[in-house]
């Protein structure tokens, strides 16, 4: 090697040609083989054979059923609480009952909150906090109605009450300006905003909704109380209990509108609440679902309670002058056995 190069050792000297020892050769060969083996093994373990297959679900629908067993026949199946009409000559602008009184009356007619919430339960209250609007605009659930439900849940012995919703507008603004954040906080409920890390992908296995990010706070509960607001919706025509479950989903909800009726039915199939308390204290009649003009809403001073989401919506849509036949998602729900749209066939109690 390099025999001719000046300064290099002459060939044949011990320095140049002496072979490495057997031990060193074994170590070098062994480390080569070991490294190559480890790399090959590692590559084999994480080997991706490729392919573009998308897993299609054939399983049955996912259902989160929070309902209690059927109650005794003495209690109402649909309770409608209204502020009493004023007597002639009484023209004071204030209603004859507070929202809290109406909620209490309605839930009492249903057998009381203790029929629904047991001691030590974690109760999730799901109002509609979709929009950056104030209570007077009636685009979100009235904070007093939410407060009344929270109070009833605590009175029934709930360990923890969580208030959460996935808003459409910027959530902090929606929670603050709807008045629900303050009310819930003052009552000791935990308010959970729709933060990104609260959403987990879930297979709902509905007709149009398969894999979607789900607001885990809303489904990790012992009992779930749906507290929607009744209002006009330009595409779905009416939004109440069933459509309120849009707030469960994260991700790009804007695609749902292409098949809004089936989407609503899928969600109402997935979420079966313990109780529905619908706020119709002030009802948005036009420009739904977010309104924005005080004149778009009208005071109705009504609270509806039931376990049957369909019945609540079927009754609720009459408040804005709709007919349940015009709402395809109600018919789909009925077909799926979620409840009945013939609300008057239930044990209705007006209080």
């Amino acid at each position: 090697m390099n025999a001719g190069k000046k300064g290099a050792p002459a060939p044949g000297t011990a320095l140049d040609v002496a072979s490495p020892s057997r031990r060193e050769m074994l170590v070098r060969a062994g480390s080569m083989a070991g490294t190559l083996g480890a790399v090959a093994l590692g590559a084999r373990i994480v080997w991706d054979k490729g392919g573009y297959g998308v897993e299609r679900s054939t399983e049955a629908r996912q259902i989160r059923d929070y309902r209690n067993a059927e109650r005794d026949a003495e209690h109402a199946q649909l309770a409608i609480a209204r502020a009493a009409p004023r007597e002639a000559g009484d023209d004071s602008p204030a209603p004859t009952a507070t929202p809290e009184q109406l909620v209490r009356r309605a839930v009492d007619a249903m057998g009381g909150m203790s029929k629904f919430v047991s001691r030590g339960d974690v109760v999730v209250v799901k109002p509609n906090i979709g929009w950056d609007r104030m209570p007077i605009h009636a685009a979100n659930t009235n904070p007093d109605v939410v407060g009344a439900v929270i109070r009833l849940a605590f009175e029934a012995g709930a360990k923890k009450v969580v208030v959460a919703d996935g808003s459409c507008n910027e959530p902090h603004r929606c929670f603050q300006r709807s008045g629900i954040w303050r009310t819930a906080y003052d009552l000791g409920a935990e308010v959970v905003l729709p933060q990104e890390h609260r959403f987990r992908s879930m297979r709902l296995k509905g007709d149009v909704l398969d894999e979607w990010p789900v607001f885990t706070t809303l489904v990790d509960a012992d009992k779930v109380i749906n507290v929607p607001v009744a209002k006009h919706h330009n595409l779905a025509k009416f939004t109440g209990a069933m459509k309120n479950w849009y707030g469960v989903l994260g991700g790009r909800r804007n695609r749902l509108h292409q098949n809004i009726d089936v989407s609503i039915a899928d969600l109402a199939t997935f979420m079966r609440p313990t109780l529905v308390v619908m706020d119709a204290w002030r009802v948005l009649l036009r420009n739904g679902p977010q309104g924005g003009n005080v004149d778009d809403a009208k005071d109705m001073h009504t609270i509806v309670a039931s376990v049957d989401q369909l019945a609540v919506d079927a009754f609720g849509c009459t408040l804005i002058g709709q007919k349940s036949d015009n709402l395809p998602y109600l018919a789909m729900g009925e077909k799926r056995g979620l409840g009945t749209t013939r609300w008057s066939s239930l044990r209705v109690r007006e209080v």
Partner: protein
Amino acid sequence: MAAEHGHGVVPEHAGVRLDPGIAAGVSEVHADVEPIPWKTGRVGVVEAIDLAGAGARASKDTVAVAAGVGVGVAAEVGVAAGVEVAARRKKKLPGSGIPPRRIAVILKWARRASQVGFFALFMYFLFQTAFRGSFAARADAAVRLPLPVEAFLLADPFVGAMTLLSTHAVYRGLLWSVGLLGLTMLVGRVFCGWICPFGTLHHFFGWLLPSRRGRGASRVEANKTHTYQRAKYYLLYAFLLAGMGGSAIGGLFDPICIAVRSIGLGVIPAAQYVAHRALGAAQDVHSRPVQAAADHAQDFLAQTVWQSKQFYFHETWFIVFLLVAVLFANRFIPRFWCRVLCPLGAFLGVFSRFALFGMTKDHAKCTDCNLCLVHCQGADSPQGGVKWRQDECHMCMNCENACPEDVIKFTFLPNLRSTIVAPDTVRRTALASVGAGAMFLPATRIADSLDVNYHPRVIRPPGAVEERSFLERCIRCAECMKVCPNNALHPAFFEAGVEGLWTPILIARVGYCEFSCVLCGQVCPTGAIQKIDEKEKMGIGQPPIKIGTAFYDHGRCLPWSMQTPCIVCEEFCPTSPKAIWVEEVDATVRDSKPGADGAPPAYKTVHLQRPHVDPSLCVGCGACEKVCPVQDQPAVYVTSVGETRSKTNIILLENTSYNQKT
């Protein structure tokens, strides 16, 4: 050098060979006289005598303490008996080892505390430049930030001067910048050494990251005053002239603006991105406590440091790249940014000539040990033998603390004989810079971005003033982009022309302008975005503030071209009555599958709502564009035309007459 201080007998660099005490002929003083406390270091041959004397004093003091004078006296004694401290100190001080004056030590530590405190305050304000809601607020309470989060920018006299030249007015809170100017005229550039968060960052990285070449002799060499430090003055003059011409482009180089922009739009979102993934992985661990801890960590971070969703900023990589580059430069030239480029530092440097507080040097005592230079921040020639550069000094007090020979002293109303107070810029270069600054404006404005060709995507925030006034005011501090709760405002790259680099534009695909939100105007320090209220923005009892107009692309819109129901845009339209209205139609659509026996696909009729925009009602918020399900290029999009602030970039005749302050 030394001769000018009247120590003619001392040879130059005497200290190299001789003990400076002996050289100066003062050793007898130490031998016989009560030593001056802060001089009782280990001063050459007299050390033993000093120690003995100190011992005697100490024992006397012990008696005094025993006599019941009190513990407080003992503390004073501790100061007086500096000898004992020196004797106990294990580490040998270099050179003559004269410890610095106590006040210098105190000032050094006060400076460090001040740097940490102001940096923490800056970061706190930056974290608070966000709306996180409040459980305590009433539903009808106006949404505003409780803290003056833009305070550092309001105190920035470079911003104040630049916008004063461009708008001939000092906007609201910018009056505070006079206070900082006053502080500089009292005690020099303490802002740079004690307050500036960006300077603190460079100070820290200069300490953390010196390269092999950045230590020892090379560091000393790097810390000597160099002519390249004049660059910042030339930049300053150019920016001020550009300001006079009507462009606040100097904000690109303002250190506070850079700090807000690069940390707020780059570092914080990037940290969130990393944390979200790390904590997301922790949430996948099948252990309840781990999941709960990760959950709580995410909650806490979202409520304090960032927000509950990930923010993204348009082309922000370049902003971060420049930050990394300028921090990296500290490896070779400590505080490269502060010494060479910072126009705010230059501005304060110009005014520091009036400072009453400054340095005196006893050149005769200097041994050329260069310890002062090792620690110098401003490269302001603290060493003996040359004049101190007051305009470059950050007043960090490191040199006086490092000096072992009692050469450097900071005092009020110092002798200025060995001080250069003003920048040593070259007049011709300064004039050339001024010329360059003056040329800048016409050069950018004859590009077509402003007067003749409106870029459709330059949608300015609500309350922004007319584009020319806007460019006079916008310093690209990115406060508006940081505070925007919907991540709607972004730093423009070249959409708004070269002059509009990093000015705010709305990118509705990322986020829309929340109808009732006015936070961007609240944090704007210069009035480029005016402080409007909800009534003005939403148009309660007056026309609303429009930032653009929405348009439909019928070829991409589902109800228009695919006969599929949608109208999410209409649902999100925030005005009342809605600017988006729908037309009910029955349209024919072909089946996707062929009929039986290969017959052509059947046709059926579907009922659709087709959306339209009413341009007189549309405010251009971009909610429709944000929610349009046609994901890549939306079927409804907003462009800047019709914006309230412009008298020319409009469509409708009726909008031509309105009352707009310009």
